[in-house]
């Protein structure tokens, strides 16, 4: 575990930026988990109206200001992080296994399986991620669950590609040949001999991707195709706030910066994990 004073922490903290990333990520995750207790106005996460406080600029009482119906933007931003993190975790836990299995099969079995799986992967990779997610959402009802499905559907090919490349290298190693000679099953070779070697790059990519999934999810809801109001979501808060530029600039800017911070945190953290696990770029 990454724990101050441990040896892993020592390696991880050689790069101060990784520590900054770890700190940002910890603050975001803790704030999101404890949102009902740490936010100043937990009720504002719902459809509350407080007209006397509407459109107030940032102040001590409302550090990020209030929106057009008087809700505290800081509170809504912290609650929105909950959904963003949930999206990231669900998408990666759906997309990673699919991509990894496709990559393992394509990388280990040469021949038609390799051709078919990798061509399909190429096709997915040749449509812009956001556009593919939009196309899928085009035929589904725009909501959180479907946004998760759409993002997962476009995310697995990157893991297929990554696992495929590592598998192709590992498959020529002596211990794989040895396992084949003693008659180990394909299942054993794929998951016990090859997969552990893929773990480091996959874990690194997952840390980095958590930020980018959040970015993509917020892009979908920015276009009105993700979470629907009144549930707070960073992307739809920016879209809503953009209508009140420039007067109520804080409506769009703070949720926007919140997206930036989350992606930045996971990115720096991911670089640290990469150094820690000694993964080549």
């Amino acid at each position: 575990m990454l724990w101050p004073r441990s040896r892993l922490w020592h390696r991880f903290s050689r790069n101060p930026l990784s520590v900054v990333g770890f700190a940002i990520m910890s603050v975001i995750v803790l704030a999101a988990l404890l949102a009902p207790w740490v936010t100043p106005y937990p009720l504002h996460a719902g459809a509350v109206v407080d007209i006397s406080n509407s459109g107030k600029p940032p102040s001590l009482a409302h550090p990020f200001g209030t929106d057009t119906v008087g809700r505290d933007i800081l509170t809504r931003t912290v609650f929105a992080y909950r959904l963003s993190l949930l999206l990231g975790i669900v998408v990666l836990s759906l997309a990673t296994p699919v991509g990894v299995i496709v990559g393992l099969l394509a990388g280990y079995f040469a021949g038609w399986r390799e051709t078919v799986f990798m061509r399909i992967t190429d096709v997915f990779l040749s449509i812009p991620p956001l556009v593919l997610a939009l196309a899928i959402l085009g035929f589904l009802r725009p909501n959180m669950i479907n946004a998760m499905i759409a993002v997962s559907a476009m995310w697995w090919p990157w893991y297929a590609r990554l696992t495929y490349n590592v598998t192709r290298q590992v498959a020529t190693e002596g211990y794989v040949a040895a396992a084949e000679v003693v008659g180990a099953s394909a299942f054993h070779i794929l998951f016990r001999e090859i997969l552990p070697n893929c773990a480091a790059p996959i874990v690194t990519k997952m840390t980095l991707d958590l930020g980018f999934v959040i970015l993509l999810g917020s892009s979908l809801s920015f276009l009105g195709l993700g979470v629907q109001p009144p549930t707070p979501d960073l992307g739809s808060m920016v879209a809503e706030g953009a209508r009140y530029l420039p007067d109520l600039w804080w409506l769009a800017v703070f949720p926007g910066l919140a997206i930036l911070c989350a992606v930045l945190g996971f990115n720096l953290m991911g670089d640290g994990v990469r150094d820690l696990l000694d993964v080549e770029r």
Partner: protein
Amino acid sequence: MIKYLLRRLAASIVVLIGVSVLIFLIARVIPGDPARIALGPMASEEQVAQLRAALFLDRPLIAQYVEFARNLLRGDLGVSLYTNRTVTTDLRQFLPATAELVAAASLLMVVIGIPLGVLAGHFRDRWPDHAARLAALLGIVAPSFVWAIILVLVFSYWLDLTPVIGRLSDSIVRPPVTTGFVTVDSLIAGDWAAFKDASWHLVLPAVALSLSGAGQAARLTRANLGETYGRDYIDLARAYGFAGRTIAWKYALRPAMIPTLTILGLDFAAKLGNAFLVEAVFAWPGMARYGVNAILNKDLNAIVGTVLVIGFGFVVINLVIDLFVAYLDPRIRYRAAV
């Protein structure tokens, strides 16, 4: 070179067919009944059946795809259920604005990203390097719509330098359409006022769209420069006493450029997607509004057409860039030829 070209062309065609199959499957399998969705819950069974027949939805999937592909080859993408015009007409109207935006952003990505990477690589581990890396990182981690909003707030509203929305001011007469790019068209017409106005409208959306790619290009250029700086021939150039600037721009940058060019092609996909977000902020009259409207209205043919055009554009651009890279780097075409 010919052999490499043919091989690369063949691979692209396979991917293009794959893209058309994928989009076809998304459009026909996910929605359940596209005709019912297009017509809405109020339509009668008869109307739905009519539309199903018109869209060939009552035939087996393979037959539907053959029909779809045959129309596609003729450039027929069907009629948009929402605008009631052919999708090709619609796309012809909206595509040039998006293309202009993406082209300008790609240009800016090179103009911003590569010098930033050279700066960082040249002053490795000193403060210009740290500053450049931070700038690159900020470009990558913020979504383009957040950059768009910050830019429009600062430069258009607070500093009052640039226009807020659109491609051209109302007071300016649009130059005759030749390329569909307003900036290029106004140059061809020799209309300086229009060119200046169009450029001012273009600059903020293009910058917002270019930042994430510029950040990646800077990172990659820096990494590759680090690699080439370790090579013997750079030491040799140093030993000859060449100026640091000559070494950086003339000897180290050229080999470091090749991966950056490839990234330019791959990032093109991200730009086409992000163009949707940037266009929404600047009310840019491109494919974004058309595409998003199509999605919200369940406009089957329009969605398929938009995604197809983007997918095809991406494959073709990458083919062109790969060929250009092979032309620059003889090792690639020789390796492919053996």
